[in-house]
C-alpha cells in the first residue's frame, strides 16, 4: 500500500519534449515509474527515448491507459493542461509548474471542483509525490528516499515546501526509516491537495504507521491540519514549521509564505500542532530525530 501512487500507476508527461519534462520524465522512468506517454501538441508520432508522444491527453490515454499525469509546462499553459488532463479522465494530476498567477489557480481549482470532482490535483508549484520503490512523479531525487519495509514501521511525509521535502526524506533515511509515500503539496496560494487530504489518506493507509508533516509560515493550512489531527488522526506525528525567524510582512519566495497581522506565524502553527498532540521540532533534523524516537517506540 501507499497513498495516491504505487507500482500500478501509469504516467503520461504533459510537456515531455520540453527541458524540464524531458529531464524529470526520464529520471522518473529511470527510477522505475511506469512512464508510458508524453503529450505535446503537434508532436504526435515522435518519441522521447522510446516514450511515445501524442498530440493530446485524450489520445495518450486512449493509446496507453495512463492513470496519472505529470504536468511540466510553463505557467501560461499549465491551467489549460491541468484541465485537459481532467477532461480526458485522468484522476491524478501532478503539476510542478512554478509561477502560475493566483487568479488562474483559483479558477482552475474551482473548475476542477465543479466539473471534474473525481480528479485530484497535486500542486501546482510542488515537488510531486514518491512512493519509494514503486513510483516517483515529479522532481524528487528518488535515491534519497528509503522504501518501506514489509514489517514496518513506515512513515508517511507531507510537506508544503519542495526542498524541505527532500530534507525530510534524507533525515529519515539517515535514521534507517522507510517511507510509505512522500507528498509535496506545494507552497502556492491555492494548492489542489491540502495537508488534510494527505493526513486522511495516511490515516487510512495500513502501510503508514507514523506521519511527518512539514509546514511553513503564512496562510492557515497548518492550523486547519492541527484541527483535523486532533479529531481524526490516531497515528503518531512529528512536524517542523519553517520561518520562525522570518520578518513580518515580507514575502519569502513562496507566494504562500507571508506573515501579516500576527497571523500565520511559525509560533502560532507550532502551538496549534503541539495542542493536537504532534511532536514539533525546531529544525528539520530535530523533527527527524523526533520521528526516529516515535518509530523506535512503535518497534518495541
Amino acid at each position, binding site marked *: 500500500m501507499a497513498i495516491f501512487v504505487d507500482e500500478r500507476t501509469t504516467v503520461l508527461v504533459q510537456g515531455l519534449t520540453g527541458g*524540464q519534462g524531458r529531464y*524529470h520524465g526520464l529520471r522518473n522512468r529511470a527510477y522505475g515509474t511506469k512512464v508510458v506517454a508524453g503529450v505535446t501538441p503537434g508532436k504526435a508520432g515522435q518519441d522521447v527515448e522510446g516514450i511515445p508522444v501524442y498530440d493530446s491527453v485524450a489520445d495518450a490515454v486512449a493509446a496507453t491507459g495512463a492513470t496519472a499525469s505529470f504536468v511540466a509546462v510553463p*505557467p*501560461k499553459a499549465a491551467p489549460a493542461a491541468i484541465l485537459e488532463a481532467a477532461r480526458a479522465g485522468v484522476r491524478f494530476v501532478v503539476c510542478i509548474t*512554478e*509561477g*502560475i*498567477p*493566483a*487568479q*488562474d489557480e*483559483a*479558477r482552475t*481549482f*474551482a*473548475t476542477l471542483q*465543479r466539473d471534474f470532482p473525481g480528479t485530484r490535483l497535486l500542486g501546482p508549484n510542488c*515537488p510531486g509525490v514518491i512512493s519509494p520503490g514503486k513510483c516517483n512523479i515529479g*522532481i*524528487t*531525487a528518488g535515491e*534519497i528516499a528509503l522504501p518501506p519495509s514489509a514489517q514496518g514501521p513506515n512513515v508517511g511525509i507531507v*510537506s*508544503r*515546501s*519542495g*526542498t*524541505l521535502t*527532500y*530534507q525530510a526524506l*534524507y533525515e529519515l533515511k539517515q535514521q534507517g526509516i522507510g517511507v510509505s509515500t512522500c507528498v509535496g503539496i506545494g*507552497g502556492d*496560494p*491555492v494548492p489542489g491537495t491540502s495537508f488534510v487530504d494527505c493526513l486522511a489518506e495516511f490515516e487510512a493507509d495500513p502501510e503508514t504507521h507514523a506521519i511527518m508533516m*512539514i509546514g*511553513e*509560515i503564512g*496562510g*492557515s*493550512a497548518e492550523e*486547519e491540519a492541527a484541527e483535523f489531527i486532533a479529531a481524526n488522526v490516531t497515528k503518531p506525528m512529528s512536524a*517542523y514549521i*519553517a*520561518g*520562525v*525567524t*522570518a*520578518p513580518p510582512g*515580507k514575502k*519569502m*519566495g*513562496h*507566494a*504562500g*509564505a507571508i506573515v501579516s*497581522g500576527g497571523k500565520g506565524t511559525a509560533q502560532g502553527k507550532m502551538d496549534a500542532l503541539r495542542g493536537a498532540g504532534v511532536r514539533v521540532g*525546531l*529544525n*528539520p*533534523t530535530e523533527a527527524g530525530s523526533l520521528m526516529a524516537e516515535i518509530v523506535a517506540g512503535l518497534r518495541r
Partner: protein
Amino acid sequence: MDLFEYQGKQYFARYGIPVSAGDVATTVDDAVAIAERIGYPVVVKAQVQVGGRGKAGGIKLASDAAEARVHAGNILGMDIKGHVVRRVWVERASDIAEEYYASFTLDRAAKRHLLMLSAQGGVDIEEVAAKDPGAIVRLHVNPIEGLSEAAARAAAAEARIPERAQAGVASILVQLYECFTAGDCDLAEINPLILKPTGEVHALDAKVSLDANASFRHPEWDEFAATVELDDRERLAREKNLQYIGLDGTVGIIANGAGLAMSTLDVVNQVGGSAANFLDIGGGANAEVMAGALEVINSDQKVRSILINIFGGITRGEEVAKGIVEAVSRVSLRAPIVIRLDGTNADEGRRILAEAGIPESVLTSKPTMLEAARAAVAIAGR
C-alpha cells in the same frame, strides 16, 4: 508588488472606480501647480507604503497656494516609520458624510475570493475585526461565477450600509472585483470608501498589491516596478532575477527553495547567529545563477561568512559546484563559504569542488545543515 496610494488610484480608475481628481508630485513647485490646477481645498498626502501616515503628519489639508506650499515642503522628505517620503499625492478635498470599508482577497482556506465589507470604515479594519466582528460582512465568491450586482447589493444591505448608498456601493464592489480578478491583485482594498453629502460613493484611499506571477499579461505594470524602493543589495538581486530579502545579520545565506532558505535562517538563528539575508536561488538554478547569488551576497558590507545550503531536486549539484568555482575565480569574496550540498548529483558536485583546489580559508564543506550553520556562525563570530 505593493502599490503606492496614487498608483492604486490610477489602477482603480482603469476599472472605472471613482477616485478624487489629483496628481502626483516629487517637488514642492509641482505640488503647488497641481493644487492650482485642480482647485482648493486640496489634500496633500505622503506616498509611503506604511500605515499611520495621518498621525505622523503626512496628510494635510490646504485651502490656498501658500498652505499647499508649506505642507508639501514639510511632507516631502519626511521620515514616516523609516520610510522617506519622495512623492506626494495632491487631490481635491472631499466632503464626507459616511465612511465604509471594502476589500477583496483570496481566502486560501476556502479557495474562494473573499469580499469584506463594513459600514465602519476609515479606521484600522483589524481593530474593527477585534472589537466588533459582526460589523464586517464576509462574502465568499466562486472564482468561476464572479460577483453579481445583486449579490453586491445584498452584501451592502447586510453590512447595514444606508439605503441611499447601497446602489453606489454595489456598483463599486462589482468594479473592484473586476480590478481584483482581471487586474491580478493579491489585495484590492478601499478604506475609506466614502459617501458624499451629495449622495455619490467614492474611493478615498487605495491599497493594491499585485501578483508578480501575472506580470506577463500586464505590460502596464512596468511603470509600477520602476518605483519599487529597494536597497542596493535588493536592486542587484532583482537585476539578477533572484528572490532576495535584505536582513541585518552577518551570515550571508544562499539556499534553493523558499522553505529550505527559511529553514536555513531558522537554524542559523538557533545556533546563535544572525542571517544577513534571505536568498532563494530557486529550482533548476545553474552555475550562472549561483555565481550571481554570490555576487549579491558579496555586495553586503556586513557579511562575515557565507552559508550555502543546497538540497538538489531540480537543482543539480554539479551546476551549483560549477557556479561556486566560477564565482570564486571571478569575484574576490569578502567572506569564507561554508557549503552543505546534498540531493541530485551531489556526489558529482562535491567532486568538482574538491578538484577545484579552492583553499579551506575560502570554502569548507559540511555534511549536514546543522553542522554547516554552526561552522558559518563560528566564522562570522571570529
